[in-house]
């Protein structure tokens, strides 16, 4: 399957099933578009007609280009057939019941009262609660016991606001570190925080122990403070930005993300991304709000079109700033063409409900953080393990080929069929699709690959 598009002066051809990316001129772009539907003679005649004002487009030249296309096809880099469907799901079956990542909800409470919070101010539609060390310790044991031969194990401290239960976070990390060697494991911890309670102890400990830190900032002060307020209604921007700057400055190059949410209020979210960059942050992520379609914060169909334009603006600005020596990273434009994920990962998706689960403060297991509080989606608990096998099987069956809507989509090996939670919230089923999310995802991938094309052109002079 091919996907052809033009963006920022580049003509790009993606050969979805091989993963090959070709940057072509106008003539090759048109020939590739016609190649499978017309004879060589017809293509030659059409191109001579279309480019009759160009001296470089001769019959010989057109035939040479068709020869190149046939050579690429022969080499498995163009018009590669989709032969992966039979493999879909086998990776997860092969993995058995291995679990390698847990999202620990250490605090179902929050010191901010953000109106768009999918977790209903940290409570996940339930009671406020804190995870005890005993539950956290058992979660680590549960992860080790169920991780099979996997060495790298991921644990994210999430909430609510995890710094409201900071001593327990530190105890859990200490426990995991004390046992990881004897079990041949390597824990990678992540902390996701709104920043209000960051102090020197948090900075020192996080920069020593956390592989990644996700810092919530929505960008411009007026945008951030319109939503991310405390219970007295005061915006949090002025309190948290200096703390984030101090933490990042002390991080010594270790991974972090400034992570924002944009809503109907700011579909021009690139201005918020640029604001974060102007504050000195370089690792940036900005996500569309997750909420019900009738929520006033929800992105409208008009917003979706604006956001797609904004993604292009963002990509072009990133290239410009990179040249000026003030570049930054945008999470969704990070794409590793040479050493990215293998086909098994590409078709099998995020692993929610199978190798990745969320743990509530009282030890219940859910397929991921976005399902916590949905009683029908409870998988089991960290003492008895997964007891809802049918539900786990449903998640195991989610892959790039599980949804008929994805069959003809060029992006399915980039998104793996999409987010089960987004699908559930949009359609009521984890096997559904969230169409606006698909549109945005495709635009992001187009932009990410365009950036690679531009970087390649730059490096070749």
């Amino acid at each position, binding site marked *: 399957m091919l996907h052809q598009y033009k963006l920022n002066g580049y003509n790009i051809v993606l050969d979805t*099933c*091989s*993963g*090959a*990316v*070709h*940057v072509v*001129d106008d003539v090759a772009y048109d020939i590739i578009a016609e190649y499978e539907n017309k004879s060589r003679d017809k293509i030659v005649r059409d191109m001579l007609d279309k480019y009759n004002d160009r001296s470089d487009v001769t019959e010989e030249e057109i035939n*040479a*280009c068709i020869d*190149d296309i046939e050579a*690429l096809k022969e080499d*498995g*880099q163009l018009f*590669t057939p989709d*032969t992966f469907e039979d493999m879909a799901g086998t*990776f997860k079956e092969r*993995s058995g019941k291995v679990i*390698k*990542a847990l999202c620990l909800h250490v605090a179902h409470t929050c010191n901010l009262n953000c109106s768009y919070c999918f977790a209903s101010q940290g409570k996940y539609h339930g009671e406020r609660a804190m995870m005890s060390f005993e539950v956290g310790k058992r979660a680590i044991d549960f992860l080790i016991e169920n991780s099979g031969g*996997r060495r*790298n194990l*991921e644990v*994210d401290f999430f909430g609510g606001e995890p710094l409201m239960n900071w001593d327990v976070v530190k105890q859990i990390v200490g426990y995991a570190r004390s046992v990881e060697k004897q079990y041949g494991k390597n824990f990678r911890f992540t902390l996701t925080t709104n920043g209000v309670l960051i102090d020197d102890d948090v900075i020192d400990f996080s920069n020593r122990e956390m592989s990644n830190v*996700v810092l919530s900032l929505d960008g411009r002060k007026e945008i951030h403070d319109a939503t991310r307020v405390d219970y007295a209604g005061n915006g949090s921007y002025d309190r948290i930005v200096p703390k984030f700057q101090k933490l990042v400055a002390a991080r010594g190059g270790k*991974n972090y993300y400034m*992570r924002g949410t944009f809503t109907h209020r700011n579909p021009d979210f690139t201005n918020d991304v640029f604001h974060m960059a102007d504050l000195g942050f370089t690792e940036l*992520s900005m*996500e569309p709000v997750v909420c019900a379609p009738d929520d006033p914060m929800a992105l409208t169909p008009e917003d979706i079109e604006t956001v797609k334009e904004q993604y292009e603006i963002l990509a072009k600005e990133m290239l410009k700033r990179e040249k000026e020596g003030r570049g930054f990273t945008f*999470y*969704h434009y990070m*794409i*590793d*063409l*040479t*050493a*990215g994920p*293998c086909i*098994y*990962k*590409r078709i099998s*998706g*995020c*692993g929610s409900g199978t190798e990745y689960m969320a743990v509530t403060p009282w030890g219940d297991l859910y397929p*991921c953080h*976005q399902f916590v509080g949905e009683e029908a989606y409870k998988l089991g608990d960290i003492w008895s393990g997964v007891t809802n096998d049918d539900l786990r099987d449903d998640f195991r069956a989610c892959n790039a080929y599980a949804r008929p809507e994805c069959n003809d989509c060029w992006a399915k*090996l*980039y*998104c*793996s069929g*999409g*987010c089960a*939670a*987004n699908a559930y919230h949009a359609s009521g089923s984890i096997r559904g699709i969230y169409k606006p999310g698909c549109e945005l*995802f495709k635009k*992001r*991938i187009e932009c*990410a690959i365009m950036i*690679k094309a531009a970087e*390649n052109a730059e490096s070749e002079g």
Partner: protein
Amino acid sequence: MKRIKTLKTRNLCKSAKNGGCGECQTSCQSACKTSCGVANQSCENKNASEKKN
């Protein structure tokens, strides 16, 4: 090729041979938390010799 420049990429078909070790990051776990892109992840399989071909 005069009119076609091919970027260096990992061949997905070849990646089937030694792929599937499962050591890579869980997709949205430690960053966005709201989408399921896998393309931006890095492969952690030391035995996937075809990666940079």
